[in-house]
């Protein structure tokens, strides 16, 4: 509770603070008075007084008993009155716009184009905004990194915007302050530096792709020529740049063109995952585009993957070899040598058999310029250099990949963190300005950054959360979110986007552009700065028009970096081969959900099941079943990982398909500051999540993989929360006796499908007919001659990336339930991606199966509901009437697909995040911040209610209203569900099945199509298309069982 105004009689503070304020106000009238009050409210003293519930008392204990009772009496009386609001207390007024903003129709969303950044790289988005309130991020179809789709992390940025734990005021050594105080305090410091050319000034940022910010940094460095700019990314791409330098002579970025790739070899690259590659959405689209099969015809590219940790690429691969990350160099060398790259010794021991490698190389050679070899960003420079040589040898450059000058502006101009640590330790740093980095938490332990940082005289951090680093600085300044500020950024291919704000800053923040410009002495708004930059940089003949177009489109058309012509000149002796030891290799990887830890305060991401492990809220020591046996550990066992620099407690998670020689540890967990969600802990036996801090093990000499850690088993176990348990292998074919054809996943090899597809389809049709004959009811259930909604999911192109899960969460106001509730299997996601393994435990094949409510035509849930809360619409939707639901949960029991979700507790309101509110002192309005995030078109469900996928019925209704207004039918493709929209690979198609020309009707008729659990005759409206694989017939290892 916060004390609000002095009109509250019992709390009338007869204290000096108020006296002082009164004195200041005295003698001023009119405008001066008000301005003064505003000024006044900005003084630290006033702020402090405002923030104090019992002003000028150090604690509540200093209030005497009588006063306390008086307060209590008053509070109780007022609490009673609060309940009568509306009867005799003045009500909050809701008034219509006197002058409506342009284009705004209340109740109708507006969409604005902008961009969000993941580790500096932009992805274009369209922001859905309701009455000035951004509520959802969707992909910008015109943006090259989005193509209309959006990954889970980028979508979750909207939750970050409303994060109540964001830094909201300037903090000066842990007490509240103001921007004015900061500017007054920092001016003399900077002036003093100016005299010596800024020799003591250091700027530390993450990856900067923004042209205007780069310009601002350049201007800053021009004023302070001796100052230095450092860049730190915990999961950076410096190896990529180094590798390019080795092979190409200069740091260049590689942009891939999977569209033309026929044979792809991934060397530990998870190019389908947004945490591993900034172009992942585009690459996923193009990669799966090369695998689409319609009817009985089609071609598929072939993907070979070498993996040190199971990822999305390995799950999609036609052939996969689990191996050590250090062995990749040997694999690359072997390929290079086999292809005839001169001077390469390809004789290192590698995980694949020589016959397999022979076949792989033959395949590559046959594909020629349509082949593509891609290395993981974390692989050492030598691997990247080799890969450049391989691709050049194959003639792939210019066809399946091209080189562009680096998008990351720091590659050429900035120094790294290590040199900053050196400078700090030598005492030469006076002013350290950090923007949104967290090196205290995530820098390698051997650099001891926290100790070094303490030696800087003035430490300033501009950041969105007051995190581990933020707690140790002198000035912590709130950073605006990218949805609150003007700016620009570049995508993986160099395309420029203008970033526009969608809402006035919720907190008293400044953008990094404004901040750097301020340091350089330019006190201007972000808008002016961006416009000025582009005015000078040049947008076109008609600047104003070009600017408006760029802001409107979200991208600057034609701004992608042009390809750089280059030749590979590889000096084989310069290639450092990583040492392959004989012990367990530990791989540090960014977490698939919370990345390097910067998204740790995001509940959506914390609860997003990791694609393969389906793990939420924690990181683990992930090892293979064989390794677990060897170490004598089982799932959930506590172990201690000991390195030279530290030790951490971790939990064992056994992952089928994990290389036996390696272990994976996700970075980013174990946060100690930075928000309520980020810092949930597992202490006191409470199962909250939060994981362990893997950075404590990470040293600068082994940033991504290392050997030599010890794993010691501790006593005790620790519960992990997964959304899908371990199944027996072949879990999709649980044959109990001869004749049991239970198949949940249908998968074939391409070869088999092309040859026998028609026979297979005929067999499926026959069994389908057989089931239909068992049916007592007539074929046509729905007499209604209108739209009949249906969906089809192509499992062949689904890469399991989780984008649909988050899209659904954002669209449908799905709450975060917390780890203990996920542990009780009460997660609320309406769509889940089931993961099935087949084959051996060491190297199984993975199949993804997205499942949401399949909208059965004869839904088992409907007849059992005693209050008719779930009923069928004439358009074939199985509808939930939340108001009517009493929560017997019978529908969920009777649902064979188990897609119904029940609000066992008051999930919408019980989250810790909802308790935190920002206090806008100017108007005394308390804003329950996260409630602003809710989609007004979708009911927020309370406790005790069943819910499930509705096929985004709000979007259907919206389209229906539009079509009725125009007196026409709803067009095909007019209704796009949230999951469909977000899907990077366009694996989900939704539409009107009754319209035989619609895409969904065509997909449903595809011979690969089948209905999940068709034998139950529930007649689902969602069908799945069988998975196809394209193994090399010359390689026998990855034989598909069909």
């Amino acid at each position, binding site marked *: 509770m916060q004390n609000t105004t002095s009109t509250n009689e019992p709390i009338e503070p007869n204290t000096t603070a108020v006296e002082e304020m009164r004195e200041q106000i005295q003698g001023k009238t009119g405008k001066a008075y008000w301005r003064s009050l505003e000024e006044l409210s900005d003084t630290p003293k006033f702020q402090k007084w405002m923030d104090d519930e019992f002003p000028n008392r150090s604690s509540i204990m200093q209030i005497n008993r009588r006063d306390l009772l008086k307060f209590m009496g008053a509070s109780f009386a007022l609490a009673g009155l609060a309940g009568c609001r509306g009867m005799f207390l003045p009500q909050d007024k809701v008034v219509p716009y006197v002058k409506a903003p342009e284009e705004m129709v209340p109740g109708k969303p507006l969409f604005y184009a902008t961009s969000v950044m993941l580790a500096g790289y932009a992805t274009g988005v369209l922001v859905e905004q309701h009455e000035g309130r951004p509520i959802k991020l969707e992909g910008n179809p015109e943006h090259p990194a989005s193509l209309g789709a959006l990954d889970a992390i980028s979508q979750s940025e909207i939750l970050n915007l409303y994060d109540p734990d964001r830094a909201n005021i300037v903090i000066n050594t842990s007490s509240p302050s103001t921007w004015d105080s900061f500017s007054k305090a920092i001016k003399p410091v900077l002036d003093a530096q100016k005299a010596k050319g800024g020799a003591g000034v250091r700027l530390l940022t993450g990856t900067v792709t923004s042209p205007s910010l780069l310009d601002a940094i350049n201007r800053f460095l021009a004023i302070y020529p001796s100052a230095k700019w450092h860049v730190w990314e915990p999961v950076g791409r410096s190896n990529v740049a180094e590798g390019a330098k080795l092979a190409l002579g200069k740091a260049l970025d590689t942009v891939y063109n999977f569209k033309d790739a026929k044979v792809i070899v991934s060397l530990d690259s998870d190019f389908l995952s947004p945490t591993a590659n900034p172009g992942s959405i585009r690459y996923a689209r193009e990669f799966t585009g090369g695998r689409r099969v319609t009817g009985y015809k089609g071609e598929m590219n072939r993907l070979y993957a070498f993996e040190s940790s199971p990822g999305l690429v390995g799950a999609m691969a036609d052939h996969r070899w689990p191996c050590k990350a250090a062995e990749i160099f040997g694999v690359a060398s072997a390929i290079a040598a086999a292809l005839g790259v001169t001077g390469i010794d390809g004789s290192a021991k590698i995980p694949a058999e020589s016959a397999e490698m022979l076949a792989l190389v033959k395949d590559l050679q046959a594909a020629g310029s349509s082949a593509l070899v891609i290395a993981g960003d974390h692989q050492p420079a030598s691997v990247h250099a080799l890969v450049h040589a391989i691709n050049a040898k194959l003639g792939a450059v210019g066809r399946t990949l091209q080189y562009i000058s680096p998008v990351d502006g720091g590659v050429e101009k900035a120094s790294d963190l290590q040199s900053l640590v050196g400078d700090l330790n030598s005492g030469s740093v006076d002013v350290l300005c950090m923007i949104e980095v967290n090196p205290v938490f995530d820098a390698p332990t051997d650099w001891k950054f926290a100790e070094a940082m303490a030696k800087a005289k003035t430490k300033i951090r501009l950041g969105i959360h007051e995190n581990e680093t933020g707690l140790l600085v002198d000035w912590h300044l709130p950073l605006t979110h990218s949805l609150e500020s003007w700016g620009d950024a570049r995508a993986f291919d160099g395309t420029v986007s203008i970033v526009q704000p969608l809402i006035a800053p919720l907190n008293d923040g400044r953008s990094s552009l404004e901040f750097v410009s301020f340091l350089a002495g330019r006190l201007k708004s972000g808008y002016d700065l961006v416009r000025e930059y582009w005015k000078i940089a040049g947008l076109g003949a008609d600047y104003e028009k070009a600017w408006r177009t760029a802001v409107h489109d979200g991208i600057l058309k034609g701004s992608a970096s042009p390809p750089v012509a280059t030749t590979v000149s590889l000096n084989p002796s310069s290639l450092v081969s990583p040492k392959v030891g004989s012990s367990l290799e530990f791989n540090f990887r960014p977490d698939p959900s919370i990345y390097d830890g910067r998204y740790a305060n995001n509940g959506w991401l914390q609860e997003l099941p990791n694609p393969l492990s389906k793990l939420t809220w924690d990181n683990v020591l992930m090892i293979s079943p064989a390794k677990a046996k060897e170490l004598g550990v089982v799932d959930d066992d506590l172990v201690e990982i000991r390195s030279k620099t530290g030790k951490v407690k971790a939990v064992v998670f056994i992952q089928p398909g994990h290389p036996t020689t390696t272990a994976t540890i996700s970075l980013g967990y174990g946060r100690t500051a930075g928000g309520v969600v980020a810092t949930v802990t597992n202490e006191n036996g409470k199962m909250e999540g939060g994981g362990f801090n893997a950075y404590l093990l990470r040293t600068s000499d082994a940033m991504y993989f290392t050997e030599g850690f010890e794993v010691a088993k501790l006593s005790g176990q620790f519960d992990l929360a997964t959304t899908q348990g371990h199944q027996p292998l072949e879990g999709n074919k*649980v*044959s109990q006796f001869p004749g049991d054809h239970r198949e949940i996943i249908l998968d074939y090899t391409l070869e088999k499908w092309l040859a026998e597809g028609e026979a297979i389809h005929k067999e499926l049709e026959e069994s389908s007919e057989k089931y239909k004959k068992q049916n007592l009811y007539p074929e046509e259930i729905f007499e209604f001659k209108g739209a009949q909604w249906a969906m089809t999911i192509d499992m062949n192109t689904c890469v399991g990336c989780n984008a649909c899960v988050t899209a659904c969460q954002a669209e449908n106001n799905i709450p975060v339930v917390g780890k203990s509730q996920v542990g*009780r299997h009460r997660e609320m996601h309406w769509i889940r991606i089931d993961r099935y393994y087949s084959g051996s435990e060491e190297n199984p094949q993975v199949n993804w199966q997205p499942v949401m409510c399949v909208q059965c035509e004869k839904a088992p849930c409907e007849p*059992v509901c005693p*209050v008719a809360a779930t009923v069928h619409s004439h358009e074939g939707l199985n509808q939930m009437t939340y108001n009517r639901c009493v929560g017997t*949960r*019978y529908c969920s029991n009777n649902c*064979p697909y188990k897609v119904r979700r*029940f609000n066992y507790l008051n999930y919408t309101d019980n989250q810790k995040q909802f308790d935190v509110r920002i206090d806008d002192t100017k108007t005394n309005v308390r804003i329950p911040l996260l409630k602003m995030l809710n989609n007004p078109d979708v009911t927020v469900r309370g406790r005790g209610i069943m819910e499930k996928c509705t096929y985004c019925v709000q979007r259907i209704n919206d389209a229906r209203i539009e079509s009725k207004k125009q007196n026409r039918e709803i067009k095909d493709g007019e209704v796009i569900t949230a999951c469909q929209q977000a899907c990077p690979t366009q694996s989900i198609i939704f539409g009107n099945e009754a319209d035989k020309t619609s895409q969904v009707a065509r997909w449903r008729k595809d011979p690969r199509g089948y209905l999940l*659990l068709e034998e139950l005759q529930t007649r689902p409206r969602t069908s799945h298309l069988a998975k196809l694989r394209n193994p090399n017939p010359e390689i026998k290892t990855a034989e598909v069982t069909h």
Partner: protein
Amino acid sequence: MAYKPLNDVMITGDQTYATMDDRIGALVLNQRIHKRNWWIMFTLGLMGAGMMATSISWLLYRGIGIWGNNVPVAWAFDIVNFVWWIGIGHAGTLISAILLLLRQQWRNSINRFAEAMTIFAVMCAGMYPLLHTGRPWVAIYWLFPFPNIMGVWPNFRSPLMWDVFAVSTYFSVSLLFWFIGLVPDFATLRDKAKNRYAKVALALPALGWRGSAKHWHRYEQAYLILAGISTPLVLSVHTIVSYDFASSIVPGWNVTVFPPYFVAGAVFAGFAMVMTFAIPIRKIYKLEDYITARHIDWMCKITLATGLIVFYGYILEIFYAWYSASPFEWDMTFNRRFTGPYAWAYWALIFCNGIAPQAFWIPWCRRNLTVVMLICQFVSIGMWLERFVIIPMSLTANFLPASNKMYYPTFWDFAMFGGTIGFFIFLMFLFVRFLPIINIFEMKDLLYKIQTWAKKHDSEREPVATGGDH
């Protein structure tokens, strides 16, 4: 109908009408008879009732999430306990209604007691369907078909809807039946009471009963009609409860044999519970003359018979799982019951319900009260396990392997269950102290019949046996 009242076994000792009035009436009229044992049990029950009240309050405040239910296991302890309790009630109705219609006079000494158990068990059971809903505050009226402005009716196709009617009918008919049977006894006690307050308190429910021939005539008619109404209820209530499962598509639930097998199970559990209470109470209050060893023997035989039906049901379930050729059913039976993480529950159930009651084939076991008590406990546990095996266990794994999840109960699951047991004990011991636990006038009627028969057939009279088996 000519029958041979088993005077030597149904009533023992030197009994007259007066001794019966005194002995049974004394439990109500002479409050000093209730000593430490009563207080121990009452306190135990009160504590349980308190725990139940606490868990209900917490449940209403926090939501169903305090229990261990999840998705896919949306029903667990809540429905297990509901079915268990409602099953226990069935013995009472069977004894009072069906045995009355079959003129089984041996029921006279245990029917009051069993009917009280029915009422209390249905009270315990009835709480669950309401409290297990996510929003009981709307469930309490939306489940009833009342005409409303929205024109929305409940879904009459839903077995849960049938449940609402079945359970509410069952409770009201049982209560009425019990009360009507009590009226003549209230009058007897009213007449015998010396304490003024007791007199008034007993006079009110006695409804002005004076024992006239007209009263008796009407009483007999009403009682017979209610017995007629109750009889189908014995079969229908648990049949409908079984429909909750049988009419679904869940493997392990979708079994057509459920209705008879549930009814038999209910009677089985009910008799075990009647004996669980009757044996200690007859000992504490020295009622061995009215509830004789022969009564226990008969009840054991019914338990054995119904137990065999139940066991046959288990075998049929396995047979159907195989015979249906449905992989889901067989998966459920084989991978989730015979083996798997909950196999212990299944095999414990088979032991408790299938193996243990077979001891009742041996007369010695039926006579030895320790053995009888032990087997009754097995039956109670076994019947609870049966519902556990059917309800949550079937839900942990059904169609899509990806949705297979484990179920673990929480403290509050046990608190609510323990609480209802406490509440039941609490009500039972209040009943023991404040209402006649044996039907006085029916016992006198029985005594009369025995004596007149004895006079008539004095010469044929067999030597007095001491409760041995016939």
